[in-house]
């Protein structure tokens, strides 16, 4: 481990290089607007991707929020997106299921592919696309209806009305979200009566009810207390291997505990992307190390 002797001076966004090293700071270069190639570990590239992000740029009005992001998201693995606030993690996540379409003045170039299908193809039906993904948000957002109806919402809007199918999906999803035992006796009570942690697990159950190809988690624990956070993290561990998960998080411990791969982003650019163990113990870039060890950001 390298030792940093001083904290960053006020006003500078980059980290100080350790004494004696040449000032080859990629973060400063990024802040200055220069193009910087991402360091992507070979083991990531060796995985089968479920989602491929291909030179993806995004602008809010005239402000560019994502710069040529290229990253494969491995199949049935948990991939964490980390980086300081405003670095574009959530924007990238919301671009995957095209929720950014709802925001005015958004412009994109590049593409993403879900199991080989172009997401931004003009012929792509956005509603069909979203049905192939599940998403969980920062704040639990259960719908104003019963627990049961919340879970089977995706099926309902798809026109599924068979009681047997709905019952089965409801139980499977709630079991999958480790919530079944807590709510099985009150499935038809309002979902708004659940605690915050339960609500978030309900949202996860809702997201996996339609057997999504990718599960998108946008800081799912940021509004929860430590115990509820622990439960949701355990749940993510259990989803590992069964679902392809893309999770945005601010919490380094959470990323290191729950994910197989970690991508570090900064100011709309992918900086380093590799197996979580390597990112957290011996990253290629000092900047990554500085961030994941909490010395910057």
């Amino acid at each position, binding site marked *: 481990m390298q030792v940093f002797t001083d904290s960053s001076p006020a006003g500078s966004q980059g980290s100080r290089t350790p004494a004696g090293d040449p000032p080859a700071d990629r973060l400063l270069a990024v802040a200055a607007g220069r193009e910087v190639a991402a360091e992507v570990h070979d083991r990531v590239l060796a995985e089968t991707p479920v989602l491929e992000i291909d030179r993806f740029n995004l602008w809010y009005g005239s402000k560019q929020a994502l710069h040529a992001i290229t990253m494969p998201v491995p199949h049935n693995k948990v991939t964490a997106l980390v980086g300081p606030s405003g670095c574009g993690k959530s924007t990238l996540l919301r671009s995957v299921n095209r*929720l950014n379409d709802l925001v*005015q003045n958004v412009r994109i170039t590049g593409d993403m592919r879900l199991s080989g299908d172009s997401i931004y193809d003009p012929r792509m039906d956005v509603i069909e696309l*979203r049905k192939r993904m*599940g*998403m969980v*948000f920062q704040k639990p957002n259960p*719908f104003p209806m019963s627990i049961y109806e919340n879970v089977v919402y*995706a099926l309902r*809007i798809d026109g599924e009305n068979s009681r047997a199918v709905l019952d089965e999906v409801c139980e499977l999803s709630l079991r999958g979200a480790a919530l079944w035992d807590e709510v099985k006796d009150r499935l038809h009570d309002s979902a708004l009566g659940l605690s915050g942690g339960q609500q978030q697990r309900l949202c996860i159950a809702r*997201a996996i009810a339609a057997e999504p190809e990718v599960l998108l988690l946008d800081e799912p624990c940021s509004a929860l207390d430590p115990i509820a956070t622990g439960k949701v993290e355990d749940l993510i561990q259990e989803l590992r291997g069964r679902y392809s998960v893309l999770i945005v998080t601010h919490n380094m411990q959470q990323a290191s505990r729950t994910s197989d791969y970690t991508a570090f982003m900064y100011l709309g650019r992918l900086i380093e992307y590799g197996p979580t163990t390597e990112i957290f113990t011996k990253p290629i870039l000092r900047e990554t190390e500085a961030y994941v060890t909490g010395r910057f950001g």
Partner: protein
Amino acid sequence: MNSEQGRPPRRLRSAHSSLAAHGEPLVWLTGGALALAIAMISGLLAFIAVRGAATFWPVPLVELELADGRRVLGEVTGRERVAAVDGREAFGRTLLKTATFEVTGNHYEWFDDPRVARIVQPEWATAVERLEGGRFHGLPLRLVHGDKTVAEGAELAWREFERIQPAVRRRVREAVRIDRHDRGVLQRQLRAARLGVVQADLRSGRDSVAYGAAVREEQAVTARVHERSALLDAETTQLRGENAGWGFEFEAAGGETRVIPLEQIVRAWQPNRLSTMGKLGVYLGRWWEFLTDDPREANSAGGVFPAIWGTVAMTLIMALLVAPFGMLAALYLREYASRGPVTTAVRIAINNLAGVPSIVYGAFGLGFFCYVFGAGIDEVFFRSALVADNQPTFGTGGLLWASLTLALLTLPVVIVATEEALSAVPNSMREGSYACGAGKWQTIRRIVLPRALPGIMTGLILAMARGAGEVAPLMLVGVKKLALDLPIDGTFPFVHPEREFMHLAYLIYDVGFQSPNSQAAQPMVFTITFLLVAIIALLNVAAIWLRSRLKRRYVMQQF
């Protein structure tokens, strides 16, 4: 504490030096404003409630004997003091409701205290409410039938009267029901047959088979109606015959005697003899009549049932019309329309609509709904009535057009409230729904609308309260001084939204300011106002109850 540093501690300014910092004046200011508002509103409501509820309470009848020997009998309805002027001393005076117009020539009269020699409360003093001619005050003498005296003396006559009166009253009501209802049905049958002939003429000409059939049908109907009419005549003649001859002779306060036919008496009571329970009985009986009967004597007596019916029906129809319109418009404005100068302009225009004087809506309703829309309907569906009687059906004011006009009037309220409610639905819910693969409309129907429903109900409650109390536009589009035919009855097609109707708020104006004897009608005005406020409150309570149920179901939050 800081003494060792050689510096005196910094003195805080006195806590009393700045009231503004404590904020107490503001607490008083805001609290005072609220208290004033509550005091004004509750004062108004209490005034209306007390005056309105007191109208039907039987007040003692007092007899004043004046210095000149004249005697008057009446209810004390007011006292005041007349100030001393030019050496004359101050004195009090009493306002007496003397009624008995045919004897006293007055309904109300002031009596100066110095002129009054004696005040007594005669035990048998009787107040009689009549079908025509207003209230009568007098002392009972005898009950007569034709030339025969049935019961002599106040006590016997009164006992006999109480025995006979219910049957007499029942026969009077039955005769009125036959005249108004059964004969009305016959009239409508005749008219329908007559219009059928005109219709056949217009459609196929006079030589056609259909015309011949219609003429034969009319003849048949006419014959049937005449037959039935004769039966009804016999029935009413019998009913009236049984009542005829019965009379109650009274001595009015001046000593004059009058015989009041029993069929003319709606109700009589002797307030000076009544126990509290008896008074309560009279009180409730008069309320019951007020709520369930048709009006009498230019609306200044009797009941207001048609007006209650009209007010409630109009308000509910208005709510049914305005709710979907307003909700759809607000949905488009908030959920679909892209934000830009046009949307902003539309929003400002809607807010401004709420400030347009209601009479303008009335004029618009008359000009558009009645004269354009209604006339068009008449032209297509009711041409025969137009040709034969020169009488519009939908082309004039009516319940439907009045409800539509008020729906238009309250539309801005509903749109604005719905928009507020929609924008209060958290965006995270919409996004959650989209992320599940729901389309826009699915999201609105399943997530946004249920969640916004309580807020939308609030808007609807405000709209109903505003609409139910509105008078000015209604005067143009269908409210009438007297309209006893309710818009729903037993004749085909059972619902008659084209009919004119009565309305409580208009009744207040009519009874209070258009009646020939506005002083006598004043208590009635308070009672009607009280009733209208109560009905609006009732409608609101119902809507609020519905809203709280919806809220429990959709918006309960645990945090």
